[in-house]
């Protein structure tokens, strides 16, 4: 399992730049994916989701891309703002076995400099 501990991947960007956060998922049977944002001392906040029958989905300032061939998920944030600074987690779910069980990635720390 994952054992990164405190050494999470980090991404530092300037305000206004676009950010891309990547995630490699583990289960080829996963059919639903979610990106969460977690600010210090708070619970995760839903950002965007995508089902496995899609390869791209757009939200407000965010886009999620799914590449099932290489089991890769990415989150693109347009015009990144200081308020976007947080830890970002991807999560996968295999609805064929359990709706409730999300498997989370280790997280990426995004820091946006004004």
């Amino acid at each position: 399992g994952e054992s990164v501990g405190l050494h999470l991947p980090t991404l530092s960007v300037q305000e206004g730049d676009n950010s891309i956060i990547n995630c490699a998922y583990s289960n080829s049977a996963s059919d639903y994916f979610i990106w969460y944002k977690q600010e210090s001392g708070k619970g995760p906040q839903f950002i965007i989701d995508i089902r496995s029958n899609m390869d791209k989905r757009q939200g407000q300032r965010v886009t999620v891309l799914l590449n099932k061939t290489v089991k890769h998920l990415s989150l693109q944030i347009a015009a990144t703002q200081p308020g976007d600074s947080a830890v970002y987690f991807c999560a996968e779910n295999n609805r064929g076995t359990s709706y409730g069980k999300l498997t989370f990635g280790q997280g990426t720390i995004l820091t946006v400099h004004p």
Partner: protein
Amino acid sequence: GAGVSQSPSNKVTEKGKDVELRCDPISGHTALYWYRQRLGQGLEFLIYFQGNSAPDKSGLPSDRFSAERTGESVSTLTIQRTQQEDSAVYLCASSPRPDNTEAFFGQGTRLTVV
């Protein structure tokens, strides 16, 4: 408030004692989830309740952990004979649907076992 409420927000307990953590989901949400988050890591699934169906307990790490939910309301997570490795933030989430969509997380209970 309309969010998921967890109590207590912080709990310090002595090794060997039992603790009980509480989650009040959003009214009307049929699905409820418990996750554990160790420092600097992603979330680990513990248990999932959906309506009156049998809960998915596959994530509970040992028989010291148990959880209950009465109907579609409050849930309690109990840890017996706490160990230092139980120290973590315990997060609860609820969803209006059984499939993780629109799952809202509480702020968590930070448990410290000394």
